[in-house]
Each structure stands twice: as structure tokens, then as C-alpha cells.
């Protein structure tokens, strides 16, 4: 097992490196670059940039160099100085930008993730045990609703309802007066208030499929003979449910945890944009659209790393959760 993990970790480096090349290539694939984006944006505000201005800017940002050179420079900086480059959009070092948004990003996604598991797993178990009961249908219905409604629309609707009912569309993560305020109990409450809609939206969609998967798994497990054996032992139903089928049904969910690692950071981009949440998702989205190369590149690199590590984690979990594989590894 250990040797396996080591082997895998060693593999991470070349893979991520390769990805970095691919990523960097793709980012600059679309015609135009940051400057043409920028000038287009400025033009809209009547601030016309001449070619000269643009050329000026390009050379300033080193965008006039060929791609491979830009890549080489980027990589060199990363390895020599640990400098991931500079965000044109933010006029800040990339790492600064990422740092700026990390906190709230984690709050939002972890809360909604927590919410997901908290809801999905019990409900999944319930709908399986009480298959075809009213409850089963109700929960299934709701979860499908969550899936079928596109996030952006749901977000708009909820915001509008919140506006018509409470006179406050709950834009963003804070009310205006708290955005720049130092952390205080009131600010936390304000944040909590503004988290409701995102959590509902992100949660609802996420829970939907998790419930379905959990339910499916449970149904498979519930009727396995070992449940009968356990019952024959004199184990109480509750204990049986938790120790045997649930444990088995959890496997796919737990083991796919690693794979969804990246979702923590990018999962809810569209929702975040519509709800005006100032978190990573939208920032990176715009970086990609605006071809803010180094920001986007660094971000994607980070994601790649997470993906690769996520896979590793998942594989380990998978092995660790399933005795068969576990022993197999013990063998090798």
C-alpha cells in the first residue's frame, strides 16, 4: 500500500507538469489576448485605445512574446521565486488575488457541502428503507426539482422572492454596511443570512444526486443475506441498518469525495455569479474570459493538482474502504 502511494505521489509531478503545458496552451488559444479584451472593455466606456496604446501595453505585460516563451518565463518564476505571476485584471500578484477570495470561498462551499451530506445521507437512507412510501416520493420529488431547475434561474427567483417578501434580495454575501466592516457578531449573522439562498441552491442540486445514489446503494445492500444473519444474531434493527447496509452504501459516496475536491473551489460558479458572491469561482471565470493568463493559469494548475491528489485520495479511500482491495494491496 505505502509503496503504491509513494509511486502515485511520484507520478503526480510529471502529470501536473504536463497538464500545466496543456492548460497554458489552451488558455491563449482563443483569438485576442488580455489587451484586446481590456481595450474592448475600455472602449465601451468611451476610453478608446489606439494600436500604439495596445502595442505599448502588450510589451509592458510581455504578451508580445511567443507563447512558449511566456510559459517558460512563468515556469521559471514559479520554480525560482515561487512567483506565480501577475494578474492583469487586479494589478496584483496572482497569489494575492487567490488569497483574497480563499476565505469566503471555503466558507461558502464547505457550509453548502456540509449541508449536502447532512441532508443527503439520512434522506437517502430513509427513502431506501421506506421505499415507495409517501416520504420517499416527496423527497425524490424535491431532489428532482433541485436538479431540474437551472441554478441561475433558481437564484434569480429566490432573490426576487426574498425581495418581494422581505424587501431585501440578499445580494452578495454581506449587506453593504458589512462588506468592509471588521468581523463582528453582527457581521457573522449578516453572513449567515446571506448564506441561506446559496446553500439552498448549491445544496439542493448537490443533494439531489447524492440522495439518489445513496438510495440506490441502500436498496442494493438492504436485501443482502448478511442483513438477515445480523438479524438472526439478535441485533436491533437500528444497529443493523447503521453497521451493515449503510456502511456498505457509503462507500461510493465517500470514495468519490476525493474526486469532487475541486468542486469545493469551482463547484458553484454560475450560482455565485448570479447571486453576486465574491468567491473564487467567478473570479477565475472572468480570468478565463478576460484571458488574464497567469491568474487563470495558476488557478487551473492548482485545480489540476487538486484533481490529481483527489484521485489519489479517492483511490486510497476506495482501497481502504473495501477489504477486498485492501487485502489485495496488502498482497502486492
Amino acid at each position, binding site marked *: 500500500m505505502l509503496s503504491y502511494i509513494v509511486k502515485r505521489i511520484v507520478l503526480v509531478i510529471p502529470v501536473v507538469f504536463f497538464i500545466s503545458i496543456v492548460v497554458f496552451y489552451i488558455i491563449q488559444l*482563443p*483569438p*485576442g*489576448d488580455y489587451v*484586446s*479584451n*481590456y*481595450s*474592448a*472593455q475600455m*472602449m465601451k*466606456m*468611451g*476610453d*478608446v485605445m*489606439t*494600436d*500604439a*496604446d495596445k502595442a*505599448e*501595453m502588450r*510589451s*509592458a*505585460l510581455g504578451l508580445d512574446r511567443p507563447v512558449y516563451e511566456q510559459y517558460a518565463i512563468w515556469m521559471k518564476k514559479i520554480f525560482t521565486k515561487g512567483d506565480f505571476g*501577475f494578474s*492583469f*485584471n*487586479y*494589478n*496584483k*500578484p496572482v497569489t*494575492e*488575488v487567490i488569497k*483574497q477570495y480563499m476565505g469566503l470561498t471555503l466558507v461558502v462551499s464547505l457550509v453548502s457541502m456540509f449541508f449536502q451530506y447532512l441532508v443527503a445521507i439520512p434522506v437517502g437512507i430513509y427513502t431506501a428503507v421506506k421505499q415507495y412510501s409517501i416520504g420517499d416520493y416527496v423527497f425524490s420529488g424535491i431532489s428532482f426539482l433541485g436538479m431540474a431547475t437551472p441554478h441561475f434561474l433558481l437564484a*434569480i427567483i429566490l*432573490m*426576487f422572492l426574498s*425581495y418581494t417578501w422581505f*424587501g*431585501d*434580495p440578499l*445580494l*452578495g454575501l*454581506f449587506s*453593504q454596511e458589512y*462588506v*468592509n466592516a471588521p468581523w463582528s457578531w453582527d457581521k457573522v449573522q449578516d453572513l449567515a443570512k446571506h448564506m441561506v439562498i446559496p446553500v439552498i441552491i448549491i445544496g439542493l442540486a448537490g443533494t439531489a444526486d447524492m440522495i439518489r445514489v445513496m438510495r440506490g446503494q441502500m436498496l442494493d445492500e438492504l436485501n443482502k443475506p448478511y442483513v438477515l444473519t445480523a438479524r438472526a444474531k439478535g441485533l436491533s434493527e437500528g444497529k443493523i441498518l447503521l453497521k451493515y447496509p449503510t456502511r456498505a452504501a457509503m462507500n461510493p459516496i465517500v470514495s468519490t469525495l476525493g474526486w469532487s475536491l475541486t468542486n469545493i473551489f469551482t463547484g458553484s460558479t454560475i450560482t*455565485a*455569479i*448570479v447571486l*453576486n458572491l*465574491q468567491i473564487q469561482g*467567478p473570479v477565475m471565470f472572468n480570468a478565463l*474570459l*478576460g*484571458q488574464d493568463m497567469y491568474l487563470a493559469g495558476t488557478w487551473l494548475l492548482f485545480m489540476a493538482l487538486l484533481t490529481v491528489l483527489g484521485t489519489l485520495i479517492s483511490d486510497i479511500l476506495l482501497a481502504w474502504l473495501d477489504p477486498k482491495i485492501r487485502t489485495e494491496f496488502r498482497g502486492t
Partner: protein
Amino acid sequence: MKSFRFLFAAILVLAMIISGCTSGSETKDKPSGSPAVKETAPASQTAANTNAPGDGAKEAPILAEQVKAGTLPPLAERLPKQADIMVEPTVEEIGQYGGDLRIPWTGSGDKWKVGQPTEEALFRFKKDGSGVEPNVAKSYEVNADSTEFIIHLREGIKWSDGVPFTADDVIFYWEHMLKKETFGKKVYDAYYSIDPATGEKALAEITKVDDYTFKVVHKYPSVQFLERVAIDNKWFFAPAHFQKTILPEFVGEEKALEIAKKWGFEDLKSFGQATGYYYWIYPQIPTLRPWVAKNDPESDQFIMERNPYYWKTDLEGNQLPYIDRIVATKVQDPSQQVLGTLSGDFNLNWFGAKDFTVLKENEKKGDYRVIQWLTTDWAPNGVSVQLNQTTEDPDMRGLFQDIRFRQALSVGADRGEIVEIVTNGISDPVQASVAEGLIGYQDGWKDQWAEYDPAKANQLLDEIGLTKRGKDNFRQFANGKDVVIDFIESSTDTGPFLELIKKYYEALGIKVNVKVVDKATQDEMKYANQIPASSESLAAVNVSLRPDALVPLRVLTPWYGMYGLYTQSGGKEGVKPEGDVAKILEYWDKIKASKTSDEINKWANEIYKLHMKNQWVIGYASPTPALITASNNIRNVPDYLVWADEFRSLGHGHPAQFFIKS
């Protein structure tokens, strides 16, 4: 709608006439040689005849406190010397201090959203748009042939950090920033004068006369110098005492770079551009604006606070601005702008006309009012068709250049239906033209080719010789190639209009393709001449002041395509303009070489006439107003003005005088 437009038009026309006469008279009755004081700031005049401000001048409570606390010098010391205080005439009423202007913005990329309303130019456009009036400048004198401008500054006016503002700041800006191109801009055209004979450009000479006076000398007449400065350069000064601490020229390259890094910048160029051009979003940099940046523009909420040294007062001598802060909150999605306005999260904002109905419908509930300003568009953006006169495909180019073809397309679509569906009935079904009351207005222009007449359209197309029909009954060239118009769009907003256009054009047998690409790509395609047609619209206050849209001087406006590149590259690249387009350039040169404003107006008018004649831009609806939503308790927001970038959009309404009524 209509009533408002007429009333407003009337006012403007009036204004034009007046200004016209004066400028006319000026040039006549004047002993040549010795320059005569011609126009002094109306402001300072009013200042003179109002009960002397300065003493008994009042200031915002917060500032009063700071003064009491001794952290701020008393008002009298902060304001310019009495006679030089700029006194703003009352709009609705004398205001009250306090409160925030809460506006949305999309982040630091949206600099102009907070830039224009807070801008303080050396000379600013009068509210009627007829010309410029002194702003940061107190007054000016100009000689007969408009080659020598003596500009007086306000004595005792101070930067937002309290350091006096003098002619040195102007000279510094000119010598060490503009001419050295420290902020990524070439020296503006405004500072060049053109030799009528050869057309070669000569850079102006600018010299300090005394602490509060400087002189601009042009080699050749530059009648519109002040207006052009107001548009090209806007301001014409920079805080020397601050810039000296960051400009490489003064601190040396590596020190400068070090500073830049400290600010978070990578290279000196972008640093220079940010600090030299987009200075107003950086709290470190002193300005003359009513509000100055207070925090990192990249934060989720950008805040500008009142400038304690602001140099304007109202008629009763209350120091402006009335409102304490501008709070710009980052939004990502247009719907948030609307929703935030309805819910009062934003008490001031501005929109395009497409949100008109929803905003109007919620006026009462949201306790705000929708104020409509006239725009200088020829047609609502995305409700007109520009045909690239130099498009790649020779056959299509031939068609596009054929006036009959443009006429066919114009009469081939039902404007009635278009305005109903696309502009929700706000516009009138008219041709792309200069709105009544604006410079360049021509009688009958808006009705040219405006009535729906498919028969006529088909007849015209047949005349051109597009009689051959291919499959799906689309017209073909003699060589059997389909007649296809490809629209390249940068957003899906124009979808509805283009759907209708497609319907109408294809009814005429002309295939239409629409392709949507992102802004950057579109920008690139412009230079690659890959944009045969676009639904972009034109806007121009006055061609003589900002010709970009109407005169092919560079690659910018779709209709003239590569003609622009030709002029820009001095004939090396692009397509050589011919016929009327060539004429336009001719007239443009004449304008640049003109000695009097009459001359200029004449040639400008000629250009407009050519545009009317050729209708390179086919419009299908009259321009829609710009919408300003202001909470009902925000007062002093002018009811109707011209919304134009040249006039600095909302800035034209002098936000420093806005106040929140309690």
C-alpha cells in the same frame, strides 16, 4: 417620451444659436494683436455677485469636527481665495450634508463608472452642451487667430492632501508625464495644430506665466483647443509633489520599480498608467475631485470620501460636495443592478433603455425616480446595421458600397414592428440620424428611406442586378455565389433585432448569418477585417470634436473598416478611401486647419450631409434615452441633459451638488 424630447431639443437649439452668435461676434470685434479678456468663468462672476462666500462658508459636519479636533485646517484655509472659489448655481435647491451615494460597479475594470461622475476637468462642457466653460481653470484669454491661450487658475485651490495646486502642476504634467508618455498615452491630438497648407502637425508650447497662469502657444490656429482638451485629455494637470515620488525620472528606475512592486504592480508601464491615468481609484494619489478614493479598489466595496479641500461651494457658500461618500459595491450580473435598484440597495445608478419598463413599473415601490437623458446615438445601440465598406469579399464589398443596396435594406424592413419589439415602443421608427437639437441635425434625415416598402426594396435589388436566385430562393451574384451578409456580434443582447433583420432581409432574398464571439475576438476580427456587418450604432456629440465614429481615421467603427487603417498608417496599409469617404477625410482636414468656429461648423456639417446622403449606417429606430435611477430623496439631479461620454456622462450633471434630503 416625445414631449420631453421636444422640449429638450428646443432648449438645446436655443443654446446652439446663442453660442454660435457669440463665437461669431468674438472673432469680429477685436483689436487684433493685443489679446483681450474674452470670457471669464461664469462661475466666478456668480461668485462675485452672491453674498460673499468663504466667510460664513459652511462645511460638512464631519469636516467641522475634524477642524475642531485640529486634524484639519479651517474651511477658509482649505478653500481657494474668495474670488476664485467656484460657485455652482443651484439646480433645485440648496442641499444638506451627509449620506452616501450607493452605486454598483463591476470592479476596478469599471473605473470610469466612478471616474466620470467625479471628474474635474480644466474646462468642462456647459450643461447645454454648446461649448466649454472654465472649471479647474478660472478663466482664459485667447488671441484673434486662436494660436495663443492664456489660462488662469484659481488661486489657493488645493489638492485633496492640502498641497496647493499651481501652474507648476500643469507644466509638470505636460513636461514630465504627457510628453514623456509615462501613462501609456501618446500626446493628445488636442495639443497639435495643423498647417493648413501642408497638414503637418505642430506640437504646442506650454509655459508658466505665474503661479496661477500658464500659456499655450500653437503654431497654427487651434480654434477648438479648449473643447478638444476637454474631450481628449479632460484634465490637464497632475499632482507634481506626488508624482515626483514615484516617477522613474525622479526616483530612478529601480527605486520606481520597487515602489511599483510595493503597490502590487509588476512593471513600470502598467504602474505608470494606473497612477498617471487611472489615478482616481488609488487612495494614495491626491486629486482635485469632490470625492477621493479611500480603500483598495479591488476590495468588494470601493469607497470614495469627500475631499475636504474641494474648491466649489453652492450659492450660499456651503462647501461641496453635499454627500459624504460614494460607495461602489461590486456586482457581477446585470440583473443585480436592476434588483439592487428596485430594493434600494443602490440609491443611484444608470441603465440602458432595455430595462425601462421594469424600472418604471417599480418606481413607486422602490421609491426612486427614473430620469431620462438624451443620448447622442444615431440609433439605439444594436438597432442599426453597419455594412463594412471595405469587407474582404469583393462581390459583397461592391454591394455594400452600392447606395441602392443600402437603400433596399433600409426600406426592406418594417421599422414599426422593430421599434415595438426591440425597443419596446420607446423609439420612433426612423432612420439612423442625428437627433433633433444636436449638432449635425439635418431636416428630413430621420425619415430618409424610413417607410417600409418591400416592393421598392426588391425592385432596387433587381436593378443592382441581383436577379439570379439560388436554392431557398436566395439572391445570387452573376457568378452564382449567394448574397450573404455575416453579422459578427460581441453579445447576445442584439439577438432580437438581428432575428427580425434576418427575417426581413431573407424575405428580400438576402441570406443573413449571425455569429456571436467574445469581445476580444471581435476586437481582433476588426483588425483582420473579418467583420462584414455589425449592429453597432454610432454616437457623436460633434464630429469636429470627436471624429472617430464618422471619419475613418483608424480601425474602430465597423462601417469604414479598413479605410481607417489606411489613414492611420499613412497609406501604408488598409484600403484607400474613394468617393464620398475620401471627401469626408478631405473635410476633416479642412476642419483641422480651420481658423474660425464658423468654418469648422461648416465643414462638420458637410460631413454630416455626406453621412445623410450615403447612410452607411442604416438605422431602424430613434435613439433611446439613457436612464438614471435616483432614490427620491436624492435631489439636484438634473432632469434632462445630454448623456454623452464627451460630456462625461453623469458627470455632466455635477454630482457634487447632489444631496440626500432627509
